[in-house]
């Protein structure tokens, strides 16, 4: 997993995000409606794509795209 691949997959997952608009420093709340429905879509996406489980509290702490990436990566390291 690398961050550009991670971003491309997230962009494909959310209908209200234009491909190519997200960067690692993008603030989640500014890029799209970062509400509970989109949070669930993100949880489902990383579960299927990377087989990791993220809790509500962990998700609330994430501010930027890079935070999400690091969160998923930290889970992958634990599994490995």
């Amino acid at each position, binding site marked *: 997993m690398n961050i550009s691949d991670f971003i491309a997959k997230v962009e494909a997952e959310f*209908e*209200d995000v234009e491909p190519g608009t997200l960067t690692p420093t993008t603030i989640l709340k500014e890029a799209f*409606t970062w*509400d*509970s*429905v*989109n*949070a*669930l*879509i993100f*949880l*489902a996406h990383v*579960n*299927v794509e990377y087989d990791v*489980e*993220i*809790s*509500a509290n962990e*998700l609330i702490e994430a501010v930027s795209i890079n935070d999400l990436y690091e969160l998923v990566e930290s889970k992958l390291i634990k599994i490995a």
Partner: protein
Amino acid sequence: MALFSVPDIKISGIAACVPEDVYHNSEYDWVEEKERATLIRTIGVEQKRHARKGTTTADLCYDAAEKLLELLRWERKDIELVIFVSQSRDYIIPATAGLLQDRLGLSHATMAFDIGLGCSGYVYGLSVIGSLMSTGRIKKALLFTGDISTLNTSYRDKSAFPLFGDAGTATALEYCPGAKPMVFNLQTDGSGYDAILIPDGGIRNFANKETSFEYHKISEGIYRNGFNIALDGIQVFNFSLREVKRNVNLLMEFAGTSLDEVDYLVLHQANKLMNETIRKQLKLSPVKVPLSLKEYGNTSSASIPLTMVTQIREVLEAGKSRLLLSGFGVGLSWGSVLLETDHLQCPVILVHPNP
């Protein structure tokens, strides 16, 4: 581990019934248009049925049973067991199964009782009714499942109101030596009791006129009182994504088979995002995992038989089908069953007229 098989039981027929009124989620003006569209797309519910006050789950189950008994041409005196699985009983006491025994004109030699489960209820119900019948003493039985969930859902709760629909079902079972065994894997984690909860009206929080009826703001777009269903979406979501595949994989291993051998996986209809994620985890194609969410929403313990009746009834009527049924949610309670049906009697979905 509650992994076991129940031999010699045949499912003869399944019928489902919904109330007359159709609610379209496009009318749900508690949230603005853009959010509404995202919500509908994510949960996959475009419309669902709402019971009017005065219609009970047992009313829907009764209609389903009458239709089924007519098609099967069963003698009522031969039915000796009735189980009603629901979280929306007619009265606090007594059990609703007895009311159905009487209304259906079944004999006093009938064993009848309720089971208080929701999402996992159909699978649990099959395990209990099948186990009781497999001794061969009881030849014919009726399993009822269903819920009216819309009456205790708050309109001002965007996390619950668009999701739930009402339905009742009846399943007819027969003792049939040599019938393929039903194989079960049933599980529970009561520590998650509050993930789906109606807090007031039971003995723990007895109905209180000062506090139970008062609406509280839970979060943005979510207001509830003590009698409303409270959903912790992320908790239920993570639980289902973690446990359903494990439960199914263990069942497949125990039964010595694989998902390739299964014609259909019929899941409890939780919401589209959840069901589709589970389907992808199990690497199954969409045609093998039917959905009834779009027209009926989440119908609690009715969802599995309702999906069979509305999505694959022609196949079930035409011949043999190997099915994997899996229910998961409130409790937290979950379970799966592997079974085979053969020329099922499966009438077109029934509509219960408004009172």
